[in-house]
């Protein structure tokens, strides 16, 4: 078995390591620790964070790729978990949790026996039997998850001495229970059912929706992170050095933001596509090719989106550099680079944090739009945008095929909603101007 590191895998794990490092740093800083405690004291923000972490976990398990010896297929850890759904070889549509195929001919002519799904046990042949199996599996999942949440509450009380009886912690445990129940239920169901049905080619929709989490995560996280270095460095320089430097940097970001964002992205992606088509032989596998395209797409979005944050940091630095502590540092002969990065940068980090959390959700939504416009991720990459694009016309067929579309929208909605709710709280706590209610 050999591990395969794709570019985005590496970057995502690097990001994870960096955030662990950031947590350690925050724990050493009383002021910051206090602020984060305020953030998590709001039940809504805490449960949003738990849901968000769950998505991150899915994204990370999907970012460990390996290949068995004498095998040509590359799996991720998540693929192995989802193996039953991946390997079931269905022919066409089926509705969620059904035991039969869904297609017009079968429904009309009543040829029920022939349309049985491969994944579902052959003993199930009536809706009643189907419901009772779903019911018994769900009860099993419920029992397991109640058991595990009790264990969790017990241990967090004994070992971490967390009091489960405050309002915030109660909400947190209820959210955790929801997440655990979902996991156990999905794992129990997967070998027996297509949880969210199958699509036109007979591929499991649940599998596609879960696999898309990684794409959405990478799109949102990598892009925001890639946009940070130019925004921070140029913003600080413009605000601190003023004069000519300021003029040049202002000119650069005004020019870039003058070009309509989506058109600039479209143009860059078109060019990228032409380039990649011409150099198609340079990539070892289609997986590597689509992965590189995803990464470059993030770079392109970052190139067009750093200007907003840069403008904010410049304005803040202009104010800060007039303050006494900067003047004092100058008088003491501290070098410009040290002033920029040791004295000024920590004081604009709240803007950086706010922009990371606020931009994330917008980027996840944009991914779908870009795929629709035809300048999104590679067609072989699983993403919610590609799912929506493929399922767009199915909604107008008769009978309506609603589940691929609904699944992608719901998975996307939950991620974006939790990110937005958390972002709201972060902004409220860190932005001195932000409203304090709610």
């Amino acid at each position, binding site marked *: 078995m050999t591990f395969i590191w794709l570019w985005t895998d590496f970057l995502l794990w690097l990001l994870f390591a960096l955030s662990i490092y950031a947590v350690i740093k925050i724990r050493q800083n009383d002021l910051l620790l206090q602020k984060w405690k305020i953030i998590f004291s709001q039940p809504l923000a805490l449960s949003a964070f738990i849901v968000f972490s769950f998505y991150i976990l899915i994204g990370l398990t999907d970012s460990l790729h390996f290949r068995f010896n004498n095998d040509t297929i590359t799996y991720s850890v998540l693929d192995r978990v989802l193996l039953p759904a991946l390997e079931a070889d269905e022919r066409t549509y089926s509705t969620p949790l059904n035991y039969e195929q869904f297609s017009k001919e079968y429904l009309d002519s009543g040829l029920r026996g022939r349309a049985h799904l491969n994944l579902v046990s052959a003993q199930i042949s009536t809706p009643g039997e189907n419901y009772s199996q779903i019911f018994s599996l769900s009860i099993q999942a419920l029992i397991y998850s109640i058991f595990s949440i009790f264990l969790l509450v017990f241990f967090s009380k004994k070992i971490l001495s967390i009091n489960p009886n405050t309002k915030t912690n109660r909400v947190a445990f209820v959210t955790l229970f929801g997440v655990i129940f979902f996991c156990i239920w999905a794992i129990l169901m997967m070998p027996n059912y297509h949880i969210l049905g199958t699509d036109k080619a007979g591929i499991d929709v649940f599998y596609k929706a879960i696999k898309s989490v990684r794409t959405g995560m990478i799109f949102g996280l990598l892009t925001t992170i890639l946009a940070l270095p130019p925004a921070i460095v140029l913003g600080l320089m413009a605000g601190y050095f003023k004069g000519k430097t300021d003029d040049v940097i202002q000119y650069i970001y005004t020019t870039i*933001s003058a070009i309509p964002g989506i058109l600039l992205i*479209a143009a860059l992606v078109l060019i990228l596509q032409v380039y990649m088509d011409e150099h198609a032989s340079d990539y070892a596998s289609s997986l590597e090719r689509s992965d590189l395209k995803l990464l470059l797409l993030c770079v392109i979005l970052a190139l067009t989106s750093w200007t907003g944050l840069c403008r904010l940091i410049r304005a803040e630095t202009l104010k800060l550099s007039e303050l006494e502590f900067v003047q004092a540092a100058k008088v003491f002969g501290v070098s410009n680079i040290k002033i920029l990065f040791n004295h000024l940068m920590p004081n604009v980090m709240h803007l950086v944090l706010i922009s990371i959390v606020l931009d994330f959700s917008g980027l996840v939504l944009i991914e779908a739009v870009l795929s629709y416009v035809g300048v999104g991720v590679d067609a072989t990459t699983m993403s919610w945008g590609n799912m929506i694009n493929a399922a767009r016309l199915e909604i107008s067929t008769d009978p309506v095929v609603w589940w691929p579309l609904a699944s992608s929208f719901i998975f996307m909605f939950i991620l974006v909603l939790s990110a937005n709710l958390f972002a709201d709280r972060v902004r409220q706590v860190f932005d001195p101007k932000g409203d304090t209610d709610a």
Partner: protein
Amino acid sequence: MWTYILRRALYSIPILLGVNLITFLLFFMVNTPDDMARIQLGTKHITQSDVHSWKEEKGYNKPLFLNTNQSGAAILTDTIFYQKSIPLFQLDFGHSDSGRNINKDINERMWPSLALAIPSFIIALITNIVFAMWMVMLMGTKLERFTLILSVALMSISGLFYIIIGQKIVAGLWHWFPVSGYQSGMESWRFVLLPVLIGVVAGLGAGVRWYRSIFLEEINKPYVNTARAKGLSEQQVLFKHVLRNAMIPILTGVVVVIPSLFMGSLIMESFFSIPGLGSYTIDAINAQDFAIVRAMVFLGSVLYIVGLLLTDISYTWVDPRVKFK
């Protein structure tokens, strides 16, 4: 004031030059005319002479920046950069790679775009402000908290969801509106109504929150207390005093997009098959027609800069304190 406007207008020239240079680098350096020729001619069985004649026909057969075969000013002018960039400044977009006259297309397709964009813009503006005001009035109540979370939920839903579901439910079930298409003249409102409605709903969450934050910043200022102390009703305080004072931050965000309404909406127009500039651009992207995409990028930048200029001018109109330096 006129000198101020003139100075601002002159300031935008280097920006437009920059935009032009960036788009040129993108479209001609990264992606050479040879590549373009291959795309337009199809990928199979192309000889070098096919590529050559295509480039000659479209005027892409010159050097990029410097023509060393010429003498005098022609070293600079007889190049692709000069030939393809200078006409843009006169808003002469030339011909598309498939041979269509871009200016003529823009003139035709501008109107459907405007028919969709202007009502959407105005209705969204009014709805957002009214809802935001209403939320400010509810301040401190349970209902306010509910509307806040609702607006976060609304803005977390993909815009594509609103369009697909809106099209399905409203047009499919009730047969009130045509699902898609366009007809110019008086009949156009029937085609535009549904996309306008969907556009307003889709933007409601984010819009309301933005206006609300602006109003909240105003509401804590002393003049509001004075107005309340005078015994004015809450409606009068909000709509007469707060709204007027909030005009500056509102204008900053709003005026800048007005000229860009010309460009139309990429997604809306192509979903509802409205033959505006947005769907024109999408078609060009799908057909990889770089001449059109480049023209639209340039036009978009010009309109954005006009928007910035209008923003500055509008400040003086709402706030006499603003003086031009």
